[in-house]
């Protein structure tokens, strides 16, 4: 298998190319733009045989991708931040009509304030729309999870669209040495697209997405819920087959050195790489720490999380999104709910917003706090772990009085 130097965006494109998408409708937005650009280059050169719709907004991008896939071909789109927010109502159409689109989402914070940089607030805002969500730790995972997403989303027991989330700039623009599988291997793993449920075909007509009364709406949402439940089995099987074919392990959650850990940090995305480095460093010092990395955030892997966190007395959860107005961010709220019957002191951390780097120092600080809590030496933790001292004073203006 050949190795290539690819950044996250290029890896996503590579996966979409290997999946032989036939319609591309992507609108540029930082830090996703190179995905839209690379796809158009591949179409122009003939390397990817696809129709390229140069859409005029993300709302159109997702609308066109959804109906294109309903008309019987694999459609590709990708977005970030504001674009994902603009797509919001159409995400419901895609999921509710059971259209298994796979979409890379380059995680970037939402305005206001304007930011161009990494944060999970955009994808977290869409977590109830009925899409699966996979979070990548490194660029290899971007390629692998995208390939796996096609396999899982299109399974007839799932038929649910999937977002493959990669951190803006940290993954999208960082070059790593990537193992790109051969087309034949991918063809064996991802079969040619066949619409299995609803489709638009004049030889076999049906009317899709008409008005549904209160007597049936609940049942259709329930069908989606059952599909989310089914996804775990399908993901596990797909990951097992992936490992056999491509020689790499993927999992739903990863308990990194958590077996005998006294305290565990839960996190998503690229910061897990840094967190693993810190875990190793602290372990060398004899501190029993571990990391629970969540790869599959939707559907939320309650069983797998409980397996890792069972018996742990102190857990920290790192939310890379603010979760404003909530008791905590989305990840903390859901992890807490998943272990609510277990005796566990579960602490909430927010950081890495708007492109702020999640540093090894901060993670070490978190682990130290958690261990102090474990030892009974600390009561309060630093929830907003990387907020500056003068947060309320950072803007001063001279006013005319």
């Amino acid at each position, binding site marked *: 298998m050949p190795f290539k130097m690819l950044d996250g965006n290029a890896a996503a494109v590579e996966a979409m190319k290997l999946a032989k998408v036939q319609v591309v409708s992507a609108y540029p937005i930082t830090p996703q733009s190179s995905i839209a650009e690379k796809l158009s280059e591949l179409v122009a050169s003939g390397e990817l045989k696809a129709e390229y719709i140069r859409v005029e907004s993300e709302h159109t991008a997702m609308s066109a991708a959804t109906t294109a896939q309903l008309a019987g071909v694999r459609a590709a789109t990708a977005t970030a931040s504001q674009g994902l927010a603009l797509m919001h109502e159409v995400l419901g159409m895609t999921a509710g009509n059971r259209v298994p689109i796979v979409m890379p989402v380059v995680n970037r914070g939402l305005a206001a304030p304007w930011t161009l940089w990494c944060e999970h607030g955009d994808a977290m805002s869409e977590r109830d729309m009925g899409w699966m969500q996979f979070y990548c730790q490194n660029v290899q995972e971007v390629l692998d999870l995208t390939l796996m997403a096609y396999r899982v989303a299109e399974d007839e027991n799932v038929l649910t669209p999937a977002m493959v989330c990669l951190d803006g700039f940290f993954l999208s623009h960082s070059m790593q040495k990537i193992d790109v599988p051969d087309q034949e291997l991918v063809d064996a793993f991802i079969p040619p697209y066949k619409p299995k449920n609803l489709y638009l075909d*004049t030889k076999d007509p049906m009317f899709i997405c008409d008005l549904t009364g209160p007597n049936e709406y609940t049942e259709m949402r329930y069908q989606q819920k059952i599909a989310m439940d089914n996804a775990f089995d399908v993901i596990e099987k797909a990951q097992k087959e992936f490992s056999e074919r491509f020689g790499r392990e993927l999992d739903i959650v990863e308990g990194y050195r958590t077996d005998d850990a006294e305290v565990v940090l839960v996190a998503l995305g690229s910061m897990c790489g840094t967190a693993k480095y810190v875990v190793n460093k602290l372990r060398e010092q004899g501190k029993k720490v571990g990391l629970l990395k969540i790869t599959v955030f939707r559907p939320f892997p309650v069983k797998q999380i409980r397996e890792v966190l069972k018996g742990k007395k102190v857990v920290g959860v790192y939310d890379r999104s603010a979760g404003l107005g909530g008791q905590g961010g989305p990840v903390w709220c859901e992890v807490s709910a998943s272990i609510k019957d277990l005796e566990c002191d579960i602490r909430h951390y927010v950081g890495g917003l708007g492109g702020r780097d999640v540093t090894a120092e901060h993670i070490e600080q978190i682990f130290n706090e958690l261990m102090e809590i474990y030892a009974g030496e600390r009561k309060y933790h630093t929830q907003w772990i990387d907020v500056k001292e003068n947060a309320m004073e950072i803007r001063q203006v001279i006013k005319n009085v």
Partner: protein
Amino acid sequence: MYDIKHESKGLVSHGVSACAGCGLELIMRNVLDVLGEDTIIIIPPGCSALFSGFGNETALKIPGFQGNLENTAACAAGVRAALNAKGNKDTTVLAFAGDGATVDIGIQALSGVLERRDKVLYVCYDNEAYMNTGIQGSSSTPYFASTTTTPAGKPTGRKDLVQIAIAHDIPYAATASIHNLSDLRKKVKKAKDTDGPSLLHIHTPCPTGWRYDPGKSIELAKAAVQTGCWILYEYENGKTTINYKPAELKPVEQYIQPQGRYKGLTGEQRQELQEHVTKTYEKYIKKLENIG
């Protein structure tokens, strides 16, 4: 495939819950009659969604998709691209939306399709307001017409959809009206045979929204053309053809008198409306005669 539980002449059910006297029903039947069954239709929420159906039942025999209010053109573009990718250039992709879904919230998606020259047949049926949600004004509501959001009469004229299409220089665009069905059908056929995007802007009176006796729908559509409130013309590859130019415009009172939505106008306003209609018509005809 459809479980056919109803005998129908053509591709549309006879028992559709459109209002009695609805011109849209006439448009849907005639458009689909010309296009035939190798057609995929995209319908937004609105009056045309009555044809999409409810629950398990539909009033159409062709495949279709009900998208969002603003993305009818975008959904059509997606279907077209997929069909092209599969090597199918024959199936017609029909976008069928009302004035609100087209000139207001849907103008961006439509503009995108026109600029990209996606081969989509876009039919905009114009009943001059957001009728299905309760007769709210749209940017296609005419001057002084009363709607639930312009109760004292609309203070501005209407957005010109076909001129917007012409500004994109598409191969075929035309206006039509339900009173002249042979003209309408001819234009649908031309649009179907166009190699590129085509737009039909079809005027349809609405008994519920305009408040008139439903039997007068055809009569009012004709009066609109005869008083200069609606102009029948085509734009074909850069050339404009005015299909019907009355020798003398009938007074606009003949058009507005039967309609409840103009009932509140004072004598002064009626005069102003007449001047507005005459002036707009004359300016428009001059502009059309100067295009190519």
